[in-house]
């Protein structure tokens, strides 16, 4: 059973490859997958100019705020956000209830393409994430008592000596 599930996952692919496909097919500069809590999960394309951790936190906050705005005007949520800049633009779309995809692109003429590819890759990502179970995988590798012991030691080292 486990073997079947694992082979299914490998056939479906991984989020990074899906994002890389999006970058190539849409001509985007960067694509990120983040959680609604603002955690950066995966990335593709050029990220050298970005603080991806801070960006993920800010975009998640922005998306949450927009969700409240949607509710105020009688919508469940806005599934896409678009920010147009001078030379860079951001397209944000929901992938699942808990994740969203962020695409940074430079040529605004390509917005149609970005939107189309984001929708296509978004469905694929949703399928990949549906089959993924990070907790089960981590459970096989992490001994919780040991993890706690090491972590508590590190915490004491980092915070006590100051």
């Amino acid at each position, binding site marked *: 059973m486990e073997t079947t599930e694992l082979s299914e996952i490998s056939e479906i692919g991984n989020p990074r490859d899906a994002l890389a496909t999006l970058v190539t097919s849409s001509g985007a500069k960067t694509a990120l997958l983040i959680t609604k809590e603002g955690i950066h999960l995966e990335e593709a394309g050029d990220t050298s100019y970005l603080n991806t951790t*801070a960006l993920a936190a800010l975009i998640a906050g922005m998306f949450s705020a927009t969700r409240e705005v949607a509710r105020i005007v009688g919508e469940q949520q806005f599934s896409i956000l678009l920010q147009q800049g001078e030379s860079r633009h951001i397209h944000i779309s929901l992938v699942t209830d808990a994740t969203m995809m962020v695409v940074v692109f430079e040529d605004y003429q390509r917005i149609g393409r970005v939107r189309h590819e984001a929708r296509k890759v978004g469905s694929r990502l949703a399928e990949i994430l549906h089959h993924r179970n990070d907790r089960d995988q981590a459970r096989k590798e992490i001994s919780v008592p040991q993890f706690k012991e090491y972590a508590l030691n590190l915490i004491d080292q980092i*915070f006590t000596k100051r």
Partner: protein
Amino acid sequence: MPHINYDNKEINFKIVYYGPGMSGKTTNLVHIHKMLQPDHRGEMVVLDTDEERTLFFDFFPLSLGRIEGFFVRFNMYTVPGQIYYEASRRLILEGADGVVFVVDSNPHRLPDNIMSYGMMQDSLGTYDIDMQQFPLVLQYNKRDCQNPIPIGTIEKEFKLDGIPVTESIATQGAGVMETIRLATSGIINQFKI
């Protein structure tokens, strides 16, 4: 529940500094950020108004290091304290693994502290969080003020037994690192996969 990314071998926890406006939440974060070695901290994001009041949140990632092959990080957030930002506060609390409640020890701020704590409890309740099990540290800040609120006031008001309590003067850094030590330890002690 922390976020585990198996592919990247990362475990992310979320800590939120909560409390009434001007109680010292951002001051706590700024001090921690300043005191940490560069390899333990990421860039700090501050979203404030011209009057230096937090508008949406302040944030920085605190890296613990690699444990059992996984990179462990605490994402540190503050909420805006002003009454009218309740919706923002509720959103920021979503997914929190632990909270530091920063009490303003000025006696005239007691009603604000109580109101803010009540709002926090209500918001955490909407996320189905069991307050009995939830890692929470109560930090009585501004202990250098005149006639500070006695320790035990908030605990008595909300029937909090055995909750970790610290005293601090965040503007001087006193008690700030002890608070974050207790908060992170509390979260780790509750860690499950």
